[in-house]
């Protein structure tokens, strides 16, 4: 079981405590959800639980983190992972090898386990997690859902009985999220103690036994999942919705905006991703594009911005045909990973001095900070602001809400609405049903070509 006793912690060179006297327990066969707004300290709890604090991240730690009654400060990280496994937000982050079999076998090989036993374990787990057919694939060839399964299997291979999952669904489609939920239920039945740290709440309604809400480094609320039904509570602590509506929006009206006609495209000699695909996106509206992982959404965004050239097809903006180079100058694309896009020395420089915009995004207090020193949600807001600054006619966002709390999601939603009202075309590629429901007017559902 996981037992945190009076944990307080401050990161190196920081005066403010990231955690203040937090105690929590996760019993055998129990799933506990830890939630709260961005920066509330929930990811820090995950790091204390799996021993990265204090072994990897130094700083000032008080209190005890007991995993199966053993204080995690007293044993090495490699040893902790035999009783407690960690699943990170981006599974690629925890892969050390570059093919699936190796990823599953590596940790046991390092420990000198009998090869026959390793082989048997990998065989059993790959069957259990339905990844047998990708065992000899490179990790770069896997879909997000498969990556998540491989990551989970590579943790379970060490036979821990506790798990920490840090925002495990941020990159997953609704279908893959549902599958992960099933895996968790099975592990719970097998007696695992499972701590889930997440913003997304809805997928856990049938899974979590208890919920802890954090704010400013403290646990402020604890109870059954049903406490999240209170709108007041959710607003007060910056949380997301506890359930997601199932109705989907259509893409009905079109008078002016961006049109794609008879688009065909494929990478090299690989099968075509699009064949004679036609679609239109209305100016003045926020249009969501969703679809299963690997269906071609990201490729589509690269085609719309002129980064990729279509084999055939016509792009029209307000009925005027555009070449790839013209597309490049009229569109703006916000990529998924913020590390690639923010390059200025200060936040204000990144938006070319537009203080008004920073105010709208509530970043004005950070104008002199370095963009890379901001939190995830702040960086996402800034990257969108920087794209808006260039005053494009079309703005495309690739998964803007992965890992955003309720408050950040609302701010971004409002900003997109304001831009749309200037008669721009706003396109959002997303898995996030809650975001689509709250912030988008129309929806395009992409399906794989047969």
């Amino acid at each position, binding site marked *: 079981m996981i037992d945190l006793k009076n944990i307080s912690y401050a990161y190196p060179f920081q005066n403010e405590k990231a955690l203040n006297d937090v105690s929590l327990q996760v019993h055998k066969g129990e799933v506990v959800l830890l939630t709260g707004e961005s920066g509330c300290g929930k990811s820090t709890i995950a790091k204390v639980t799996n021993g990265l604090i204090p072994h*990897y991240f130094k700083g000032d730690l008080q209190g005890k983190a007991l995993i199966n009654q053993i204080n995690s400060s*007293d*044993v090495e990280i490699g040893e902790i992972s035999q009783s407690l496994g960690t699943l990170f937000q981006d599974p690629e982050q925890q892969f050390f090898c570059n093919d699936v079999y190796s990823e599953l076998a590596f940790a046991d090989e390092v420990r000198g386990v009998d090869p026959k036993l390793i082989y048997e374990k990998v065989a059993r787990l790959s069957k259990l997690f339905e990844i047998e057919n990708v065992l000899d694939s490179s990790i770069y060839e896997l879909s997000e859902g498969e990556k998540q399964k491989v990551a989970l299997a590579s943790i379970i291979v060490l036979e821990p009985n506790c798990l920490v999952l840090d925002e495990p669904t941020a990159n997953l489609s609704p279908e893959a999220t549902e599958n992960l939920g099933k895996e968790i239920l099975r592990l719970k039945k097998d007696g695992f103690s499972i701590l889930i740290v997440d913003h997304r709440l809805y997928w856990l309604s049938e899974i979590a036994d208890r919920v802890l809400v954090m704010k400013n480094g403290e646990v402020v609320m604890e109870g059954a999942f049903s406490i999240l039904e209170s709108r007041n509570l959710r607003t007060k602590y910056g949380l997301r919705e506890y359930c997601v509506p199932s109705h989907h929006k259509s893409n009905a009206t079109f008078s002016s905006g961006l049109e794609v006609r008879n688009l065909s495209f494929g990478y090299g000699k690989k099968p075509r991703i699009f064949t004679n695909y036609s679609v239109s996106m209305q100016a003045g509206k926020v249009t969501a594009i969703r679809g299963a992982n690997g269906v071609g959404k990201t490729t589509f965004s690269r085609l719309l911005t002129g980064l990729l050239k279509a084999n055939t097809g016509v792009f029209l903006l307000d009925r005027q045909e555009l070449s790839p180079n013209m597309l490049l100058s009229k569109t703006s694309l916000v990529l998924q990973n913020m590390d690639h896009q923010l390059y200025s*020395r200060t936040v204000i420089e990144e938006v070319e001095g537009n203080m008004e915009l920073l105010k709208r995004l509530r970043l004005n207090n950070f104008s002199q900070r*370095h963009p*890379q*020193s901001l939190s995830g949600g702040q960086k996402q807001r800034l990257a969108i602001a920087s794209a808006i600054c260039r005053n494009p006619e079309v703005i495309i966002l690739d998964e803007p809400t992965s890992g955003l709390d309720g408050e950040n999601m609302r701010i971004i939603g409002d900003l997109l609405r304001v831009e749309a009202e200037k008669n721009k075309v706003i396109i959002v590629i997303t898995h996030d049903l809650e975001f689509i429901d709250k912030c988008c007017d129309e929806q395009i559902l992409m399906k794989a070509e047969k």
Partner: protein
Amino acid sequence: MKTKKFYWETRELVIIGSFAALIKIISFLVSIAGGGMNPLALIAKNVVATSLLIILISSVRKFGVLTLYVAISGIIIMLTMGRGMMLLPGLLIAGILCELIIKFTGGYKSTRAIIMGVFFFDILFRVISLVLGFLFTRENPQLMIMAVVVVSIGYVGCLIGLGVGSAFAKELKHAGIIKV
């Protein structure tokens, strides 16, 4: 808490390995984007390589980081260009000497000492490689003169890189990405 077993933490070794690869990749890309081996691209390439080296040392700040980096990039050069055998001795000698320079001019906490160290490293390993190249392969003297000219042009880039690199290192520290 258990005491540290190794002189090098895993994190530090991973950073050194990553940067050995990063510096090779980025300077190669800059050369391509700059239109191959012309003086400007040569300078740009060395600006980038030297500034990344300063960032590496500023992120690891431990005696031996330069030498270890040099050893690993020697292995990379050997495996990709088949020249490592000729370069490695010069690189290693220069690495160790400059490590001592850093140590005795203010230590790894001092940015000025790091800049000094890299300044001498860039000269030393070039001189040693040129001399070794001359002795070892008995190249045509005219080609040697050419090589000296090319290397000197490149060194201008290194000098610029010293300034750019230390500015970047400062900025990354400000951004909280370099933590030591």
